[in-house]
C-alpha cells in the first residue's frame, strides 16, 4: 500500500510538474533579439569640411608647401615677381640733367614664369581651374605718373597700354588683369617696351618719398581643381578598429545614408576588406583578411560644387557568408578619388563640405546578447 501511494505521488508530481521545466538546472540567458530585422536611425553627420577635419593643421606644411589655402578657402598656388623696382632718390638723380622736364624711365623687357608654381601640384594630379594674372604698379609720389608698354601672357593674351595713369600714393595700382578659366597652365608672361612717365621735380615736392621705391610687378594665383590624372586608388588602412562584434552573432548589417557632397571630387569606395586577428598554433597573433565577410563594393559619392551639393544615396551591406560577423580588427579600404563629373565650378575649397544625412543601420538576422 505504501509503495502504491509513493508511486501515485510520483506520478502526480510527474504529471503536474514536468521536470524538463526544472529551473534549478539553470536558464540559458542567451537571447537573439530582432530576428527579422531592426532599423535604427543613427545620426546626421556633418557638414564636414576639409578645413574642419584638418583642424589646426597647417595645410601648406602638411602638403610640403605645394599649395595653400587663400583667404576664401580655395586651394591655390601663388607667385609674385618684381619687374622693376627703383628708389625715388636714384630716379631723382637721373632727372637732375633736366630737372624741369618730366622723366621717362625705360624698363628692361621682362620674362616671367608664373606657371612654374603650378607644376608641383600638377605633378600629383591637380589642375588650375581659375588663373588670375595681374600687373600692378606702386607710386609713392605725391603726383601721378603714367605707364606705357605691352604685357603678354604666353600666347593666350596680350595688351598694349599707353600712358595709363597711376594715381599719387598708389600702393598697388592694377595696370592689367586677366582671368583664365579652365585653360592650361600659364607658363610664360612678358613685358616689352615698358616706360614710366614721371612728373618734373617730383622729389622737391615730396622729399620724404625719396626713401621709397617706384615698383612694377606681377601677381599670379591659380585656384586648383582635381585633375583627371589624379592617382586613382588610395589604400586606406584602418588597423586599430578592434570592434568586438563576434559576441553579437550578427549576420548582416545594412548601413544607409544620403551623402550630400559639395566637394568637386568623385569618391568611389572600390573595395573594403575586413581584417581579423588569428592566433596560430605557436601563439602568434596575425591579422588576416576575412574571406567570409563581404562588403558592398563600388560605392560612388558623386561630386558637387560650392552651393550646389549633389546627393548620392549610399547603401553598404556588410554580410557574413557562412557564420556571423566576427570581431573586426581593422579594415582595408581602397578609395578612388576621381575628377569631378559635373560641369560646374570645380575649384577645391577647404570650406566645401560633405554631409552624411539620415545615417541608419538595418540589422538582419538578429543580435545575440548574453542576457538582459
Amino acid at each position: 500500500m505504501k509503495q502504491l501511494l509513493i508511486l501515485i505521488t510520483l506520478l502526480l508530481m510527474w504529471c503536474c510538474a514536468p521536470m524538463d521545466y526544472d529551473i534549478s538546472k539553470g536558464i540559458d540567458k542567451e537571447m537573439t533579439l530582432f530576428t527579422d530585422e531592426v532599423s535604427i536611425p543613427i545620426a546626421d553627420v556633418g557638414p564636414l569640411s576639409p578645413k574642419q577635419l584638418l583642424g589646426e593643421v597647417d595645410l601648406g606644411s602638411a602638403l610640403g608647401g605645394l599649395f595653400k589655402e587663400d583667404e576664401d578657402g580655395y586651394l591655390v598656388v601663388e607667385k609674385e615677381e618684381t619687374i622693376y623696382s627703383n628708389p625715388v632718390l636714384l630716379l631723382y638723380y637721373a632727372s637732375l640733367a633736366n630737372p624741369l622736364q618730366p622723366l621717362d624711365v625705360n624698363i628692361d623687357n621682362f620674362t616671367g614664369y608664373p606657371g612654374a608654381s603650378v607644376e608641383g601640384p600638377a605633378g600629383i594630379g591637380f589642375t588650375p581651374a581659375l588663373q588670375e594674372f595681374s600687373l600692378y604698379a606702386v607710386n609713392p609720389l605725391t603726383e601721378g605718373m603714367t605707364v606705357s608698354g605691352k604685357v603678354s601672357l604666353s600666347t593666350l593674351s596680350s595688351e598694349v597700354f599707353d600712358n595709363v595713369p597711376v594715381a599719387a600714393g598708389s600702393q598697388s595700382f592694377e595696370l592689367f588683369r586677366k582671368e583664365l578659366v579652365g585653360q592650361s597652365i600659364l607658363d610664360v608672361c612678358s613685358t616689352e617696351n615698358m616706360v614710366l612717365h614721371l612728373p618734373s621735380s617730383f622729389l622737391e615736392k615730396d622729399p620724404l618719398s625719396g626713401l621709397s621705391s617706384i615698383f612694377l610687378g606681377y601677381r599670379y594665383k591659380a585656384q586648383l581643381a582635381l585633375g583627371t590624372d589624379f592617382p586613382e586608388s588610395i589604400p586606406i588602412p584602418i588597423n586599430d578598429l578592434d570592434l568586438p562584434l563576434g559576441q553579437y552573432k550578427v549576420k548582416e548589417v545594412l548601413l544607409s545614408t544620403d551623402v550630400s557632397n559639395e566637394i568637386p571630387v568623385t569618391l568611389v569606395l572600390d573595395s573594403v576588406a575586413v581584417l581579423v586577428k588569428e592566433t596560430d598554433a605557436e601563439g602568434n597573433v596575425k591579422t588576416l583578411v576575412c574571406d567570409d565577410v563581404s562588403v558592398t563594393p563600388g560605392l560612388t559619392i558623386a561630386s558637387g560644387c560650392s552651393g550646389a551639393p549633389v546627393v548620392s544615396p549610399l547603401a553598404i551591406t556588410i554580410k557574413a557568408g557562412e557564420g556571423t560577423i566576427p570581431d573586426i580588427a581593422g579594415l582595408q579600404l581602397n578609395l578612388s578619388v576621381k575628377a569631378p563629373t559635373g560641369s560646374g565650378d570645380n575649384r577645391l575649397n577647404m570650406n566645401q563640405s560633405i554631409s552624411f544625412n539620415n545615417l541608419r543601420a538595418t540589422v538582419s538576422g538578429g543580435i545575440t546578447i548574453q542576457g538582459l
Partner: protein
Amino acid sequence: MKKSVILSLAALAIGTGAWAQSIANPADNALLEGGFVRIGEFQSISRNNVGAASFLFPSGDKLVTGLHSSISNDEFLGGLEAVNSLYNQIDYNLVSYGWKGSSRGFHTIEVGVRANYGLSVPKEIFQILKTGTARSPYDLSSLRAFGNAYGEIAYGYSLPIGDKFSIGGRVKLLVGLNSVDLTARQFALTTTEEQYKLDLDADMDITNRSKKIGVDDAGYLDYTSFSGKGKLGAPTGGGLAMDLGLVWRPFDGFSLSASVLDLGGILWYYGNAGTSSGSYTFEGLKDLTTEALEQDKIMGKIKTVGEDVLAVVRPKAVDGRLKFKAIPLNANMKASYAMPFWKNLSIDASGLYTGYSFCAPYWEARGGVSLDFPGVAHLGLNAGSGACGFVYGVCGSVDLLSFRLYANFGNGTGGVIPYEGIPLKANNKTLLIGLVYLLK
C-alpha cells in the same frame, strides 16, 4: 411538508458550504434557522492568461527563453496573448456574524480586507524584441500595472419569499487603504528607418496614505524624496458596493442561484499623481559636425536623447486627483439538482463572469457533482472551461461539534515549474479556506 422542504433545502445550502462564504450569493442565507460566527476566511485568486511555458522552453538539459535563437518566432509569439495579464487577489474576511431576525429575514455583518494587484503587458513588446521593428506602428497602451488594498464592512439581509424564492443583498462600505495605478490612454511607438516616434499619454497614481512623493525643480515626481509622516489608518478612498442575489427552487431537489457581487467601486484620492504626456521623435543624433565627433561629446548627445525621452516618460507632478475605480465585479449563476434516487447526490452547473476595470475579464463554466451529508460533511467535484482554459475544482466541508471547516480549491491543468509552483499554462487558481461556528 412545507417545513421539511425548507429544511432539506437549507441542509442543501449548508451542506454545499456556499452560505459560509463571504463571497457567496447573499440569498443563500435566507433559509438558515440558526446564526453563525465566522472566524476568518481566506481566499486567494491567481489568474494568468499565459503561463511560464509561454516564456521558457526546454532545450537539452536546460531552459531557454522565448528570445533564444533556437525558438522560432511562431513558437514564441504564437503562445502569447494580445495582452498578457497576471492578476492576483487576496481576500481576508476577519469576522462575520449572522443571525435570524425577529421576522423571517436573516442578517449578516461582515468585516474584511481585500487586496489585488496585477500587470498587463501587450504582445507587441515581445514582438519587437523577438522579430524587430518591421511591423510598426505598435500600440502599447494596454501596458498596465495596478494594486489596490481596501477594507470592507458589509451588512447583509436575505429573505425567503414563499417556498420557491429567496432574495438577498449586501451593502458594503469600502474603505480605501492604498492604491497604485499606472495606465496609459495612449502609448504608441512608430519605428521606421528614418525615425522612432513615441506618443505617450499616461497617468501614474499612487495614494499618499503615508508619505508624499517629492517633486524636483523641473516639476517631475522624485521617487528618491518623500515628505510627511506615516498616517496609518487614514483612508485614502471611500466607496460603496452591493451584492444582489436570488435563489429559485421551482421543484423539489432543484435550485437555481444567481447573484451579482461587488457592484460598486471606490473613489480614490491619489495624492501622488503624475502624468506622462508628449511626443518624442528620434531621428538619430543631430549635428555631428567635426567638433562633435569626439567620444565624450557623442556620449553627451546620447545623454541628451535619454533626457529628452525621460522628459516625456517621467511623470510630471499634477495636483492630487480623485478617480473612481470599480472593484472586480462578479456575476455568478449556479444550478443544482439532487438526484431523486439519492438526495445526498446532486449534479451542479455553474457559470462565473468577473469584470475588471484594469484588465481583461474572466469567465468560466463548470459542471460537477456533490455529495452532501448534512451535519457531517460535504464533498464536491467540478470541472469546466474558461478564459484560462480547463479548470477543475474540489470543495468540501467537515462539521465537528458546532464548528465547520470548509475549503475550496480550484486550478487548471498544464503543470507547474517544479519546486516553484509557477503555472506553465494559462491558469485560474483559487484557494478558499474558512472556519465557521454554527449557532443553534
